[in-house]
């Protein structure tokens, strides 16, 4: 099966989204880096193979997996039931909370002010699907999906959209770069935390099983906290379990 294939080929191909700092991005030599990049490398190391980072966009990451361009996705993939019909999901390896990032000119202070505004997000993401639903529910304002997180922030800083919904990590990392003077954080969204999973083909139980244990080991050995401190913040890492539920 796939697990054997990976070990035999000596190579693990991970789909990673590289315009999604700090999970995936490029350093000033334009080499991939970030939480997801390191996570992939750890997985490869555990398997005893070499890691190969394949950059994908958000809309393209699952097609890339299905089309055998990659073996696994370490791409902050939200574990929705709809998607699980098509791909196999591991236990969560990370949990995002989403915040509103607004252009200061739009005068948005909190989620409640978003009604009637133009909201953008990255096409095909959990938060995009959620935000589009909210906008449709309000019946006013507009929703715009862009092809990448970068285009969303570009559009936001140019004032083409008034606000976006993004993960706290991404929002903070982007703000830290100092490239976005006109933007500010405007509070949390009333969205349940976005648990993300590693993905592989639905039928590759061996591989999925291995990855579940791998995620568990990452937390147990403290490597998860280490990566969290390296890329995200000095605070305590996000909780990967929900109280009162097995998985």
């Amino acid at each position, binding site marked *: 099966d796939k697990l054997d294939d990976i070990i035999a080929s000596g190579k693990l191909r991970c789909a990673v989204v590289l315009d999604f700092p700090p999970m995936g991005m490029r350093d000033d030599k334009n080499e991939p880096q970030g939480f997801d990049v390191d996570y992939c490398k750890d997985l490869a190391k555990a398997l005893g193979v070499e890691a190969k980072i394949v950059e*994908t966009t958000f809309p*393209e990451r699952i097609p890339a997996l*299905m089309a*055998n361009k990659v073996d696994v996705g370490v791409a902050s993939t939200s574990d929705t039931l709809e998607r699980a019909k098509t791909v196999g999901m591991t236990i969560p390896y990370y949990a995002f909370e989403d915040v509103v990032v607004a252009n200061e000119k739009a005068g948005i202070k909190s989620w409640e002010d978003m009604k009637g505004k133009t909201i953008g997000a990255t096409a095909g993401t959990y938060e995009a699907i959620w935000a589009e639903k909210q906008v449709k529910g309000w019946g006013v304002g507009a929703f715009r999906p862009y092809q990448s997180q970068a285009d969303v*922030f570009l559009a936001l800083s140019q004032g083409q959209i008034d606000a976006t919904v993004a993960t706290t990590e991404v929002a903070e990392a982007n703000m830290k770069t100092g*490239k976005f003077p006109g933007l500010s954080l405007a509070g949390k969204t009333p969205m349940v935390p976005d648990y993300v999973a590693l993905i592989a083909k639905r039928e590759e139980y061996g591989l999925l099983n291995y990855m579940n244990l791998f995620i568990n080991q990452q937390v147990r050995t403290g490597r998860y906290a280490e990566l969290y401190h390296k890329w995200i913040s000095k605070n305590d890492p996000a909780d990967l379990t929900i109280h009162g539920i097995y998985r």
Partner: protein
Amino acid sequence: MFSTSLTLSDVVFLAQGAGMTILVTALSVATGTVLGVIFGVLRLQLGTILAMPLVFFLDIFRSIPLLIQLVLANAFVGMVLQLETSGFTIACIVLSLYTASYCAEIVRGGIQAVPSTTRRAARSLGMTWFQDMRYIVAPLATRIALPSWIGLALGVMKDSALVYVVQVTELLKSTQILITRLQEPLFLLLVCGAFYFLISFPLARFGGYLEKRWSK
């Protein structure tokens, strides 16, 4: 004054993207031209009815957006056939067929523009069909078709900007990556546009010049 945080390594990164654009274009145009010549000749040789499936097949590549062709080919090869192929291969295959579909039309036009009397003269000297094609039709049709072919090659280069959907980092995608980091959209886009323009413009002018010269 104007200032940019573009570093030397970023320029190298852009150049790699440009290199990818040129590589994909060169491979696709080369393969597509060979296929196009074969299809173009076949189309004329097969007769109207027999050629219909070929005409229909080629027409598809000219009638649906290249973006959809790429997505579909990617999904088909990977999801349906379950083959492990790189995005680069998919991009080259699709662009080759795309080139071939236009090239076949150009080739057909070029061959048809060779007067039938000239071809009869060749045959009546005892030349075979192949010799006629090789020594008479090919050189004459090439002159007629070359300007359009240059236009086609440049068109493919511009259209290769779409191969980003199959994870090939060509020039426009590299530019977008740098925009993400540097947040200087206008400057970077202008650099990118200038690159396309500097390759395309002189060649297009050269094609126009050839057309003028050979139409006399």
